[in-house]
């Protein structure tokens, strides 16, 4: 039972990542490879504030969100004015430098040693200790992420985002400052990714750079695509499937390292296959291309 709730908590955390990435990829139509970097930013901010300054959970979350937001502008403002490819490259570069900072800045992040001893969250007297508590907390955060993305998407702001996805030139010709919309969407998605990081840090109590690599970004992208972009359930389903898979493999008796490779091969291959035959994923409303 504990094991099952553990899987569900992880699925919730990844769902937050997938939902927030869907705002960019599924609804606005541009890709970021830096999602894991913001995830890590939130995790490290929360962890360091909690461990080194004794800050409360919510303080860490808000700090992580704010920090992620501000940093996102450094990436988006120079590159979003240009061709989308430049933005992808910029996010790729950003992802790699953040990893490099997580992994090499021994004095702050302890590099590969990671940060242990992150305390369980305490929110206005609610001590989050058990797996059920965490599941509830993660569920609340996931619901919040969903609420934010859905609200934005169904508003006039979201109408413009969708227009940018379909035909950005047309959107500009109707008087929309598409740069502002894209920069804002990117900042929101970064902030939400950071909340997932904070959750993760306090749940596992230990973080290290290996959780925030480029491969992790690609995993989240796969969750969005495989589950289905621009949909309410798609990112969640994608998260559940891709989190549950290696666990299922392990239950069948496959050694852990092989299971990890197989999971990656699975979602990598699925990503390719989906692009060829079913680019709207399992339950998505948007088909890439065509």
């Amino acid at each position, binding site marked *: 039972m504990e094991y099952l709730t553990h899987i569900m908590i992880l699925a919730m955390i990844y769902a937050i990542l997938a939902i927030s990435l869907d705002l960019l990829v599924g609804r606005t139509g541009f890709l970021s490879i830096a999602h894991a970097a913001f995830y890590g930013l939130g995790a490290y901010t929360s962890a360091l504030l909690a461990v080194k300054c004794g800050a409360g959970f919510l303080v860490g979350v808000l700090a992580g969100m704010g920090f992620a937001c501000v940093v996102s502008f450094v990436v988006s403002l120079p590159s979003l004015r240009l061709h989308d490819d430049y933005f992808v490259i910029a996010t790729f570069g950003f992802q790699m430098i953040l990893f490099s900072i997580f992994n090499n800045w021994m004095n702050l992040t302890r590099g590969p040693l990671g940060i242990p001893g992150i305390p369980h969250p305490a929110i206005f007297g609610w001590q989050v200790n058990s797996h059920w508590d965490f599941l509830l907390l993660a569920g609340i955060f996931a619901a919040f992420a969903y609420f*934010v993305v859905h*609200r*934005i998407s169904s*508003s*006039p*702001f*979201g*109408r*413009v985002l*969708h*227009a940018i996805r*379909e*035909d950005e*030139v*047309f*959107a*500009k*010709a*109707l*008087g*929309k*400052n*598409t740069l502002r*919309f894209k920069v*804002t969407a990117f900042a*929101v998605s970064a902030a939400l990714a950071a909340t997932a990081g904070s959750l993760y840090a306090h749940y596992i109590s230990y973080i290290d750079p290996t959780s925030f690599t480029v491969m992790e970004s690609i995993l989240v992208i796969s969750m969005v695509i495989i589950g289905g972009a621009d949909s309410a359930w798609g990112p969640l389903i994608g998260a559940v499937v891709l989190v549950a898979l290696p666990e299922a493999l392990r239950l069948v008796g496959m050694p852990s390292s092989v299971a990890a490779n197989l999971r990656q091969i699975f979602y990598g291959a699925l990503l390719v296959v989906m692009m060829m035959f079913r680019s709207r994923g399992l339950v998505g409303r948007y088909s890439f291309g065509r």
Partner: protein
Amino acid sequence: MNALRCEKLFKSFDGVHAVSGVTLEFPASGITAIIGPNGAGKTTLLNVLTGFVRPEAGRCFLGSHETTRLPPHRIVLMGVARTFQNLRLIGRVSALENVLLARPRQRGEHLLPALLRFGVAREEADNQQEAMRLLHFADLDNLANTSAGELSYGQQKLLTLACCLATEAHILLLDEPVAGVAPEMVANILTLLRRLSANGKSIVLVEHDIEAVRRIADLVIVMDEGKVIAQGAAHDVLGRAEIMEAYLG
């Protein structure tokens, strides 16, 4: 009302002079047509005027404001809207949604109001009303909820016109508004343009269809190889044999 004009515009692509020393002043009202053979630079001129392409030299003005280096969306907000030669619309959503998209200065297009929704519903209702009015004007109201991709070509052209009007622009730059449209529809579109002009809109259209131009244009500008080779009252310019020969030859 501000008038659109440009001074000594130059723009070349890969060594080809698309626009070469163009100086024009568009009237503040009436219908002006820009004609010329393919590759004359008409669309490029439009692109420069609307901020989609930066000229290498020269300046553009709207009234007394310089618009040369402004991004497209700012020029739209200043009151100049355009359509495209290769029809641009959001095919996936309804005609109404397309027109709603075009409504300017929507509070709901900012993050906090989008999340908190204070006053957004009211504004959306107002915009919907205006959008329906425009669709009615374009005779598309019974197609409001049809997805734009399913409309006929002529209906799509009318829709792009409705979108332009929705931006509350007073100057409309239309790139081939009747090209490829069925003859009955052409008449509809031209009637609409005449009505808009009578209502005070300034219309500039790029067209190949000389008959259409003859029917509605007050002023005609002829371009060839990036330069303006003639301009004047429509019946004047269109009547000059050598112009027509240069154009058709």
